[in-house]
């Protein structure tokens, strides 16, 4: 750490005095590059945080705190030099040299950068002068060296470097956590600083597919978010969009904390009334299937969603109301839904029914059960506001329950049990007097266990 300090001071001194001319602004590029090169491969891969892919490397943290966050020129030259570093052979996956670093080292490298980059934005894009693309003069950005080169004030130059660097960086083999973190910061930290954000498309598509392949749909959901952003703003076309969307509907979905993010997007994608009803029906059927094993929060968000879909696509009402089959006697009816079919247009979901949601009318949570009952009532409401139902979780549910007023009734179990927990038969056999009471006394509340 001390050596880091000393090195940085040396760089300052070099920039100040070793320039071609004392008055001319200069930054000690080469020394800084060497420093970065060594700095960024420090740390151990065990230190990478399993949660968000950042690293707990004290050198990096120190560098970030004392230099990176404070001084603009360091930030500028950081990306400038990083570009050059990445252009070197060892990070080029195609290079045949033996010098190539292993993927784990590259991941380490990436997490170092991620750690540096994640907490703060490089600069505030709102203060940049739109014409000259120069940073504002008035509150001068603190610089480490006394006379940084003029080009460092140009955000365009910075953005160009930044873009190249990131595109290179994103090509590195990343861990799922790093993917997630990158995707999470994509909107705030990356896209505003890119000259041409469409170049990110490759990365997003890649991560979307990768999420589907590794069955880790949270990556896909996050990538979907970015993709949507690009589609909306830059008219990006995406083939097989709905098939891939359908693939995201896996059993994990409703257990994830990203489910609300996904459902919001899905709601957006399903807004169109021109979607084929077969496809919409597949989505509904699949979501209903997922409800069978998911926590109440998931069901709460899915039911109004399905209600809205049904309202928007009235042909899909066949999913909850198909009287023709009943008129035919109903015998020999086989659920035609093909759950293994990948294409939502070909699942035959329209001829099926969502029995799963009917089951939810018998859900243990009274509110969920009554919510499920809206499917059996008249569809009078125009639509439900999805937002009201998305952000539920156990603690919220519990809070509502505990907030209820005590109105004097606290009903008790009227069956009396002889014992709370018992081993089963051995206790029961002594029980002859209670047998004649007709009380239905099961002597043990919970059988099969003992203390």
């Amino acid at each position, binding site marked *: 750490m001390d050596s880091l300090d000393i090195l940085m001071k040396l760089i300052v001194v070099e920039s100040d005095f070793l320039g071609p001319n004392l008055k001319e602004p200069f930054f000690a590029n080469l020394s800084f590059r060497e420093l970065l090169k060594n700095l960024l491969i420090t740390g151990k891969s065990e230190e990478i945080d399993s949660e968000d892919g950042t690293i707990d490397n004290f050198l990096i943290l120190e560098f970030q705190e004392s230099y990176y966050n404070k001084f603009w020129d360091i930030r500028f030259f950081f990306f400038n030099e990083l570009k050059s570093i990445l252009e070197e052979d060892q990070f080029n996956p195609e290079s045949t040299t033996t010098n190539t670093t292993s993927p784990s080292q590259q991941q380490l490298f990436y997490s170092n950068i991620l750690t540096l980059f994640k907490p703060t934005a490089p600069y505030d894009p709102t203060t940049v002068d739109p014409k000259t693309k120069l940073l504002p003069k008035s509150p001068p950005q603190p610089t480490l060296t006394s006379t940084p080169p003029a080009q460092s004030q140009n955000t365009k130059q910075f953005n160009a470097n930044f873009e190249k660097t990131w595109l290179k960086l994103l090509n590195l083999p990343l861990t799922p956590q790093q993917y997630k973190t990158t995707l999470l910061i994509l909107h705030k930290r990356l896209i505003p600083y890119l000259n041409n954000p469409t170049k990110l498309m490759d990365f997003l598509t890649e991560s979307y597919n990768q999420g589907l392949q590794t*069955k880790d749909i949270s990556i896909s959901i996050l990538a979907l978010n970015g993709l949507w952003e690009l589609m909306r703003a830059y008219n990006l076309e995406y083939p097989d969009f709905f098939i891939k969307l359908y693939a995201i509907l*896996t*059993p*994990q979905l409703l*257990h994830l904390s990203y489910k609300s993010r996904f459902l919001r997007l899905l709601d957006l994608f399903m807004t169109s009334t021109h979607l084929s009803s077969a496809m919409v029906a597949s989505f509904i059927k699949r979501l209903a*299937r997922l*409800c*069978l*094993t*998911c*926590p109440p929060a998931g069901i709460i968000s899915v039911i109004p969603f399905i209600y809205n879909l049904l309202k928007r696509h009235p042909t899909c009402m066949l999913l909850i*109301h198909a009287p023709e089959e*009943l008129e035919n006697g*109903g015998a020999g009816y*086989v*659920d035609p839904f093909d759950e293994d079919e990948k294409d939502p247009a070909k699942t035959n979901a329209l001829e099926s*029914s*969502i*029995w*799963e949601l009917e*089951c*939810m009318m*018998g*859900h*243990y*949570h*009274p509110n969920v059960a*009554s919510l499920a009952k809206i*499917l059996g009532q008249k569809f009078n409401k125009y639509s439900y506001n999805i937002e009201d139902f998305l952000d539920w979780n*156990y*603690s919220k549910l*519990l809070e509502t*329950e*505990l907030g209820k007023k*005590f*109105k004097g*009734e*606290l*009903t*008790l*179990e*009227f069956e009396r*049990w*002889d*014992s*709370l*927990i*018992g081993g*089963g038969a051995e206790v029961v*056999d*002594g*029980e002859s007097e209670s047998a004649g*009471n007709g009380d239905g*006394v099961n002597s*043990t*509340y*919970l059988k*099969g*266990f003992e*203390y």
Partner: protein
Amino acid sequence: MAGSQLKQLKASLKAAGLTGQTNIKKKGKKHSRKTPNETRKDDKLEKLAKIREQFNPFDVKVTRNKRADAIAKKTAVGKPGISKQAGEEARKADWDRKMSKKNKVGGLRDRRLGENDSSLTAEEKALERFTKERQRLASKASLYNLDDDDDDAGLTHFGQSLSMGFTGTDDQSDHGDIEEADDDDGEDFFGKKRKITDLPEEPQRKKTKAEVMKEVIAKSKYYKHERQKLQENIMEQVTSLDEDFGDVMSDLRGVKAPKTNGIQPKSEADIKYDMKVKEVALDRRAAPADRTKTAEELAKERQDQLAKMEADRLRRMQGDDAEDGEQRGDADDLDGDFWAGDSENEEDGFRIKDSDDEAAGEGDESGDEADDKPSARDRSDGKPATITIGGKVITLKGHSSSIGKCPSTLDELLALTEGVSYDEVIPIIRKVFQTYQPRMGAGNKEKIGVFLCVLVKYILHLGDAEFKEEERENYTLLIEYISKIIRDVAEKYPDELLAEFRSQITSIQQRIETRDPLEYPKKSDLIFYTVVGRTFSTSDMYHLVVTPTLILIGETLEYLSPDKYPTHLFSGVYLCALYLQYQRLSKRLMPEAINFMERAFLALIPEPEKLGNYESLATRVRQPKRTKHSLKSTTSLPSDLKPLRISNWSVSTQPQLANLLAELVSILDESSSLIFKDKSSFIEISKPFITIMKHLVIYHASTPSIPNLLSKLNNLARIAQQDRVPLTLQSHRAIAIPTYVPRFEENFNPDRKSYDPDRTRQEISKLRHQIKQERKQNMREIRKDAQFEAREQIKRKKKEYEEYHSKMARIINSIQTEEGHDKNVYEREKRARKGKK
């Protein structure tokens, strides 16, 4: 007809033969002459009336209907004037009939004071009646009232009036009365004599009413006077007797009483008799209600009570939130049971039997303020108390240590039970309950409420406590005892318990939030969920404790990772079993439990990587991997289920895991037949389990439960497949779309009133319309009647007023005439006298 009105009139008169030449003799119409003149005259009038009517356009009213006019229909012509007249006449007739009958026919006439005066309140009425009553009494009692105008009762001499005729103003009848009243002619007073002598001259004339009344009054007064005299006599005698009484008494005292030796010793028979009398007097009257109920009646009563409770439970299960007061009443019913200690519902399970009787207990507890001195009872009686749990009778050792004060915190209770073995804690708790029985002192109820919460904490504390193997039985007993107590006393302390359970739920939730496998789950949490299930009605749709607990269980099952921690695996299996118990009646679905069971299976089954058809699993899309709890393929399942011990929940040996798997299989078995079976998506629910079972059968075909379960699941799925029909959730009436364009009727017909295709509905609407019309008509009639009556009354009043005034005028007139006449007479007299002079 053309021309002006006048011309028309002329023409029509002429046409009727009323103008122009009358009595035209028409040839060949001779017979018409025979018609008498009278009828001819009538004919003429009739004709005239007709013509008049014809020329008065305001007497007829034609209802115009634009649609009907268009198709030239017959229009209704009404004669409002005439019909009004007719109505008026009918009413008049009615009215007259009513008036002639008034006050003459029918009914009672209520002549009570103020009864018809609505302006008086009940109190005022009563007051008025009272004053009237008093006045009446007062007037009766006014015999000696000097102001009384009734002078007959005035001065008398030997009952005879002293008024001697020359009370000149008295009219004749008065004397007649007196003459009637005393008919002995012995003493002749002057006036009377004269009167009597007068009498024969006159014929026996009929007495006037006033005379009769006077007579009656006089008679009654006479009799009254007689009675008073008698009364006076009696009173006099009584007073004299009273005065003499003292003398008599003194005489009596003077007489020596015959000597007796005090109270005579009662004979045996007397004593017996007295005893009998006393007994009979003191004996309680036979109470007819206290019949001993027969066994059948008792059973029936119990059955009824159970049926009622079951009905209540069902209602709550459906979620109809009706009355709660009844429930409270229920709780009150059971009030005494716990304290009495020997009620019937204690009998069937777990009983605290006090070997000494109730009275002794009362005596002991009455001295509760001196609770620091050890209870005399516990030591004095040799027989120790016993407790029955599940058929086992446990004799409690006499625990004689004192209880300082009611423990209000867990620490206090822990301090109290420190160093005491588990089996000795029960007497301590019992002692607390006995000492602080609510009926034994003010504030005890609150103390016990607090103590109950402490017990809840204590049982959870116990749940976490480690215990030695030899203490197992006592430990079990203690927990059973406390949970039993909580359940029984819960009825009386809903508020305290609710607060306590809620705080426990919150603390558990907080521990879950930490996501620390050491913090959660704990053994005490399992105990907590079980206690909740035993105490509260878990089948309710809404329950203030059970619903949050279910949420917690759900969250726990979602959070547990059975493939990583053995404790998680164990608690999950435990909670699944508990879930089954919770929902045994209401059969509600818990997706988390399904999810967990599948995950637990996947964590436990041997060689999960060989599991075929993993896509059908509901929880994962990847081939499951071997976990650290995966059974070895050689491990065999236990043939009979041994109870799993909570105390060694962290053990992850092969037999334990095999046990868990066997338990899981039995839970799945039970839950599929109990809960999943009736669900419409049983196929979807059971599919992953069938896959897993197929896999398990490969390894454990010899264990009967697994192939059995597999075939059962397959059968159920087949049946479900057969029964499966598409949903018809929207089978209610179609929602109407509002239209704002008038409806076009295809076969429009102005005669048709309704186009409703439904015959019955049409009938109904027709009837409804008729009713409405009738109602309107009747209202109109009633209003007209009322107006008529008002008019008539005014008329009558006016008439009366007029009559009165004319009468008065007449009277005045006559008086004036008389006066004038007299004056004339006077004048004449005066003139005559003057003339004389």
